[in-house]
């Protein structure tokens, strides 16, 4: 009798875990397939199929009442929503990688295994409710990312970026781990919920140990999220990494960390600590202003987008600081908009770049030593590639928060959360930051629509690769999604309301 019950609950747990299990299983299947039949096309197809299966399994009816699966993982609506977001983003990145890394003539199968593992790490992060699973997910994500960034391993820039990321990720993991240890030293537990219960008790407050631990955790996460003053690595890594991998770092890696941080703050009651929220609001203001101001000085599209993504994370923190149901929804909506926008923007950069090819000797060499990422590469783009320029314009306007795009609704959501919680200083910083940001977004748009540069643009037309059908379809889908959810956000908001319930 009891064993039947036990196997039943095990069965339910496996069903609940199926999105993550399917990701892991796909990684193994892809690895085996690549070992026996080394052709990128079937490997990529298998990867995409696994990702689709994983998304489908998100909709399986939850078997048990409690979403808590062991002490480590919790697969509530919040986690499922973010896993879905991560898996879809991984799908898009996988599609973008194929032609970029040489298509069928190049041996880049390992890339897909790494992508799947990184996605698994992101999935574990957003579902974790325990320091152990937090660290497991983080390391899985980071280690896959080193390899992904430096994947064209005979080219200078990606290698440099990979090493920078390796050092910083190691450093931040160390801080994080020490922070966890300090919190454990005070409270004796590593479960978020238990930490929250202890702190909610009448005499429960973080002492010096715990507070220092929390500060170290925020610092470690701050490195991953590229918040000011922990942002130094971002522009270099974004510029050096291959464009589709940059898209992955900007979206999956940051999104998963932020979702986890929000869960930690709400479940473990960290937001009740005044000094930590004060520090976070200072970080938010600094991130918005520094990110936007430094972006003004750049001439490289990938660097501009890097600083822009720093500023966007600052905007997110403004909503984050409200710490209520509206904040969860705002963060989730903004993050979704940010995912779509960043994937679209880096997607355009990918499509315009030649990418890297794997020669017969296993040696990678690009037709160009770099991606098409200089501002001059985009001169007059609208007049010879109107659709591509249109998609890029839509993405930039979304980042600037102009109506008809998701970015507008996202920024509106964030402002709503901020105003509702009377966070006036971060809100004003957000407004000022958005005004500064217009300069550099408009600068790119103006270059794309400039005419009278026929001579230079012809040279570019020759240089620029032509996108495959899959890439064009992906970019078109992203742009349509951006506009559709910018005009009719009600459905997505409905889903997010469900996700927000679990945490508060």
């Amino acid at each position, binding site marked *: 009798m009891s064993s039947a019950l036990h196997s039943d609950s095990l069965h339910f747990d496996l069903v609940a875990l199926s999105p993550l299990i399917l990701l892991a299983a796909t990684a193994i299947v892809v690895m085996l397939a690549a070992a026996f039949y080394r052709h990128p096309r079937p490997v990529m197809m298998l990867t995409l199929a696994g990702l689709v299966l994983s998304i489908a399994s998100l909709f399986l009816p939850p078997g048990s009442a409690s979403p808590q699966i062991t002490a480590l993982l919790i697969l509530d609506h919040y986690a499922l929503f973010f896993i879905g977001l991560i898996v879809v983003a991984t799908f898009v990145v996988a599609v973008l990688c194929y032609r970029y890394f040489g298509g069928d003539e190049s041996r880049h199968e390992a890339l897909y295994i790494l992508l799947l593992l990184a996605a698994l790490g992101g999935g574990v992060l957003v579902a974790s409710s325990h320091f152990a699973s937090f660290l497991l997910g983080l390391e899985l994500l980071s280690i896959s990312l080193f390899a992904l960034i430096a994947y064209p391993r005979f080219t200078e820039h990606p290698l440099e970026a990979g090493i920078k990321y390796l050092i910083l990720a190691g450093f931040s993991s160390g801080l994080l781990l020490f922070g966890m240890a300090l919190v454990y030293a005070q409270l004796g537990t590593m479960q978020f919920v238990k930490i929250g219960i202890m702190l909610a008790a009448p005499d429960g407050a973080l002492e010096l140990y715990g507070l220092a631990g929390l500060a170290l955790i925020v610092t470690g996460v701050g490195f991953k999220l590229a918040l000011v003053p922990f942002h130094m690595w971002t522009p270099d890594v974004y510029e050096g990494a291959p464009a589709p991998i940059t898209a992955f770092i900007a979206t999956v890696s940051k999104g998963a960390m932020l979702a986890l941080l929000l869960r930690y703050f709400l479940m473990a009651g960290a937001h009740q600590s005044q000094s930590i929220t004060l520090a976070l609001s200072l970080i938010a203001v600094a991130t918005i202003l520094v990110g936007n101001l430094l972006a003004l000085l750049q001439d490289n599209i990938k660097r501009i987008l890097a600083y822009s993504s720093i500023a966007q994370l600052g905007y997110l923190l403004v909503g984050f600081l409200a710490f209520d149901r509206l904040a969860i*929804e705002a963060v989730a909506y903004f993050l979704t908009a940010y995912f779509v926008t960043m994937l679209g923007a880096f997607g355009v950069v990918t499509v315009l770049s030649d990418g890297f090819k794997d020669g017969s000797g296993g040696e990678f060499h690009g037709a160009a030593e770099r991606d098409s990422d200089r501002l001059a590469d985009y001169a007059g783009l609208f*007049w010879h590639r109107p659709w591509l320029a249109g998609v890029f314009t839509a993405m930039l*306007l979304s980042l*600037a928060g*102009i*109506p*008809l795009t998701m970015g*507008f609704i996202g920024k*509106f959501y964030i*402002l*709503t959360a901020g*105003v*509702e919680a009377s966070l006036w200083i971060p*809100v*004003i910083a957000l*407004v000022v930051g*958005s*005004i500064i940001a*217009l*300069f550099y977004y*408009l*600068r790119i748009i*103006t270059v794309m*629509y*400039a*005419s009278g540069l026929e001579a230079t643009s012809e040279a570019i037309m020759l240089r620029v690769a032509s996108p495959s059908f899959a890439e064009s379809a992906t970019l078109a889908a992203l742009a349509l999604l951006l506009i559709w959810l910018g005009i009719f*956000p*009600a459905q997505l*908001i*409905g889903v997010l*309301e469900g996700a927000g319930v679990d945490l508060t």
Partner: protein
Amino acid sequence: MILAALIFILVAGGLLSWMADRWHPGAAKWLALATVGIEFVLTIWLWLQSASAMALPAHGGWLAETRAEWIPRFGVSFHLAMDGISLILVVLTAFLGIVSVACSWTEIQKRAGFFYFNLLWTVAGAIGVFLALDLFLFFFFWELMLVPMYFLIGIWGHENRQYASIKFFIFAQGSGMFMLVAILALVFLHYRSTGVLTFDYFELLNTTMSPSTELWIMLGFFIAFAVKTPIVPFHIWLPDAHTEAPTAGSVILAGVLLKTGAYGLLRFIVPLFPEAAAHFAPVAMVLGATGVLYGAFLAFAQTDFKRLVAYTSVSHLGFAVLGIFAWNPWSVGGAVMQMIAHGISTGALFVIAGILQERTHTRDMRRFEGLWSVMPRLAAMGLFFAIAALGLPGMGNFVGEFLVLMGLSSTSSVLAAVATVVFVASVVYALALVQKTFHGENTHGWQLPDLSGREMATLYSMAAITLWLGLYPQPVLNAAPNTANSPPAIAVASHEINVE
């Protein structure tokens, strides 16, 4: 339904013209003309429908309404409604839409499809602004019309277009962000006191708030409207944008976009924040009077035809600001009249500037001189609209300015006296414009064709409207005072100064 149709016809027409240009070059302008033509017929039909209702003194205000749920999470609905003031502004917008298509007919040769797409979408955004009665929807349209206008200036503009377009966009969008924060603050104040989360204009009308909060929120709205109207010192984007824009862009900017700012003052600032507006009115009126004089003096100093006209806009809209903040039936009626008359007369001056630019490739008045003998019809029209701009009795601008001054004199006779000085200054700049451009010897040896049939039709119809507004202003005035008297009656009650 008809209100939503007013917007969607333009949106669809814009997309169609863009597509059509790819299949059949040259089709875009015909499609655009058909779209604005249908729009104009619809708005005139609406006016005729409601003219009898508006003539009634006790008429309650709202002529048509559409409401549909949009984002229930925030209490945002797709709520459009039209009263007298919206109606005449929509009619003006539709008419200037036709004018702007007509004046681009030969001017725009490259990428015509995308041009008309942007033009129609700007007009659609402006009509949305005039009709929206949900604050979220209002803000949505408010921002939406900026992007196509940015492209109009940035792609088809003159020499310094990139600087002008970016400056325009940053000023307009940046000030809009402050308004968005103010809207949210207002909505949450209302939510805290009533428990209802809504962006609906009518529900937010009677929000209770402390005087200092009210002032701060009002300032958030005010900065957005002050940039658009423009009110000195927020006008610095305007001369660049108006000068560098293509003719149609200048017409729409001066005729329609500036009106959205004045409309915002009229529709939102005073009714939503009656107390704060009353406290703030002296400051706003001083700024308005400053604008009236400052714009006129700077206009006189210009050598660029379009820049001169641009500065006259600052001056004319100053009257609208004065009229709105004096807030009595005469001055508000005068402000509305001024908005309409300015839209037509300044639009016509920009059309004339566009015609000159297309033929001579310059706007520098020092290079014109003596054009009367070369293009008598154009010169006559130039004289006509210059005189209209200086406020000669019998033309629309005079009615507006006169009513504003009459209303203002009961509130602040000092400011009224100061503003009256402009009647001297405006004569100076208007006649200087005519003299420099048209009079004298044709020393530069210009040989130019006079107005074509299309150009004549455009300018003559605008002249006829200016005369009609000057001689029989009652239809416009019937529509206008409703705003000052009816729905936001609270505003009048708390703020009214010795009417009757």
